[in-house]
Each structure stands twice: as structure tokens, then as C-alpha cells.
């Protein structure tokens, strides 16, 4: 057993599963977005904000945001452990990545539920 404290789910198995589930959620969200844009060629502000006024769309979007946050954390954590060998630099990079993900997530919530 190799000990880790900065990976997302504390266990390799949960990271692995979350990585796959979040990938599927992101794929579905992307497909939905592409489909929506194709079916609304002359997209105007009213249609766009009407879509995001609906609770299900906000939940769907938040799910996608949380998925991208988890996906990025797991993926970038892996990259840092592969390529950044000095511990100081690695921990610093991981901290910056995790903080940035947190900021983007909160910002995303604000955009979704803001005016």
C-alpha cells in the first residue's frame, strides 16, 4: 500500500471510478450543448437565459461542473506525481491546482444561480 494525501478520493479505486463516471457525465453534457446549439441556430439571449432559468438545467450544469472539477483534480494530480519529482514543487503545484479548481467551482455556482 502506497500512502497518498493529495489525490481526490484517497483511494486509487475511487479515483479511477470517479474519473470514468465524470467522463461520461461530461460527454453527455457536451453532447447536449452541441445538440442545443444545433437546434437553435439563431440563438438569442432570451432562449439562452431561459434554458438556464430552469432548475433541471442548473442541476445538470452543476453536475457537469462538479464532474469537471473532480476530473481535473484526478488527472492533474496524476500528471504532477509523474513529472514533478521535487516534493516542494509538487506540493505547491498540487495546492495551486486544487485552489484554482475550488475557485472555478464556486464561481460556476455563482454564475448559475446569480441574476
Amino acid at each position, binding site marked *: *500500500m502506497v500512502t497518498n494525501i493529495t489525490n481526490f478520493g484517497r483511494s486509487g479505486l475511487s479515483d479511477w471510478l470517479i474519473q470514468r463516471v465524470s467522463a461520461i457525465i461530461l460527454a453527455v453534457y457536451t453532447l447536449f450543448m452541441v445538440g442545443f446549439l444545433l437546434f437553435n441556430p439563431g440563438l438569442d439571449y432570451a432562449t439562452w437565459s431561459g434554458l438556464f432559468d430552469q432548475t433541471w438545467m442548473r442541476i445538470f450544469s452543476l453536475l457537469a461542473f462538479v464532474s469537471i472539477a473532480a476530473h481535473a483534480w484526478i488527472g492533474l494530480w496524476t500528471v504532477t506525481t509523474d513529472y514533478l519529482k521535487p516534493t516542494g514543487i509538487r506540493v505547491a503545484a498540487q495546492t495551486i491546482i486544487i485552489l484554482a479548481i475550488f475557485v472555478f467551482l464556486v464561481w460556476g455556482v455563482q454564475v448559475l444561480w446569480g441574476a
Partner: protein
Amino acid sequence: MSMLQVSVYRYNPETDSAPYMQEFQVDTQGRDLMVLNVLSMIKEQDSSMAYRRSCREGVCGSDGMNMNGKNGLACITPLSEVIKKGKLVLRPLPGLPVIRDLVVDMGVFYEQFERIQPYLQNDEPEPAIERLQSPEDRDKLDGLYECILCACCSTACPSFWWNPDKFVGPAGLLQAYRFLADSRDTATRERLADLEDPFSVFRCRGIMNCVAVCPKGLNPTRAIGKIREMLLANAT
């Protein structure tokens, strides 16, 4: 005379400040020799040339090396299989510390092998004669037990290059699964618990270099997938 140009990685830490490639001309007389034969002809030209070999028939696993960019056993690799542009380039297995010339320090590789406890564990009372296994259960070990620990796979695996101290590597994981799959082994839970961290198994990225190079035709990637399935079944 048909001369083959061979370029060999040389490094003697006692006399060389850095490794270098040395050129040799070997007369193959047009025969499709094994790479190991060529190496022994080179040793006749330069007796300081160091490499490992023993069985010279693909059984002992001691002459794993990198031939024109691909890992394999020199003794069972014919020239016709590796020669590119009429030239043979020999290097030690990548990613391991070089002791001298083509001889590498396999320490980290064996440590990972030791870590997966490569022996049968059974806490049930010992039977009078032997622990029996059905032919079907025995079949599950095919494709696993044949590994000769040549390290061709693990030293071709980028995940093992970056984290040889944490990622068990394809060879170790193939053997980990060999004991997980054995109906006579009762330590399955303990074995799985030791593998579920983000490095030991999950650092495998499915690159499949291991499968491409294994001289025994084994498939560590499939075994790694089976371990993942067992971990998932055990934890969900």
C-alpha cells in the same frame, strides 16, 4: 563476408565519466543469427564487453535488453526481426540504473515483485498430501505462471519509469493476479487491500507496451484489468 554494423551502449563507471556508443563490425556470414550470438562475437573482439545470459533459449530471463528500440530477450530474437537499415543498436533495459554496459541493477524491479507476496498463502489446516485444485481452476493460471521475470515489460512501461518505487509494474501485477486468481490462496482480501491505492495498480495507463514486448507472449494489461475488476467487486 557480410558485415553487420552493431552499435553497443558502453559504460564502465570505474573508468568512464559518461556512457557512450561503441561501433563494432561483425561477420555474420549471411546467417540469421540470434542477437545473443552477435553479442558473443563482439565479446571475442572486446572481452571487456559486459552482458548477462545463461540459458540461451528464452527460459532464464537474464538477457533482456533493448534491441533497436524494442525490449526483448537477445537469445531468442533473430537479427531478421530487429535489424533496421542494416544496423543493430543494443542498449540496456531502459529506466533501470546501469551497473556496466548492458547489465542493469534490477533492485527496484525485484522489490516490487517481493511486495506482492509471490507465494501461496492459505490459512486452512494443511491436508495430508496436497492442496487440490480442479482442472478448471488450474486453467485460470495459464498465461500468468509462465512469466520468467525478464523485466522486458516493466522497463518498457512509462508508468514504471516515472514511479518504479510506487507502481508495481506489469510483471509484478501479472504475478499479483496469478495469486489472486489461485483457488488455493486465501489471502485475497489482504492482497487486494494492498493494491487499491492510486499508484500500485492504478498508475497503469493502458499503454500496452508491456504486451507488445513480452517475449513469452503474456498479457499483463489483461491481468491488470482483472485486478481492477476484483477491486471494484470487492469495494462496491
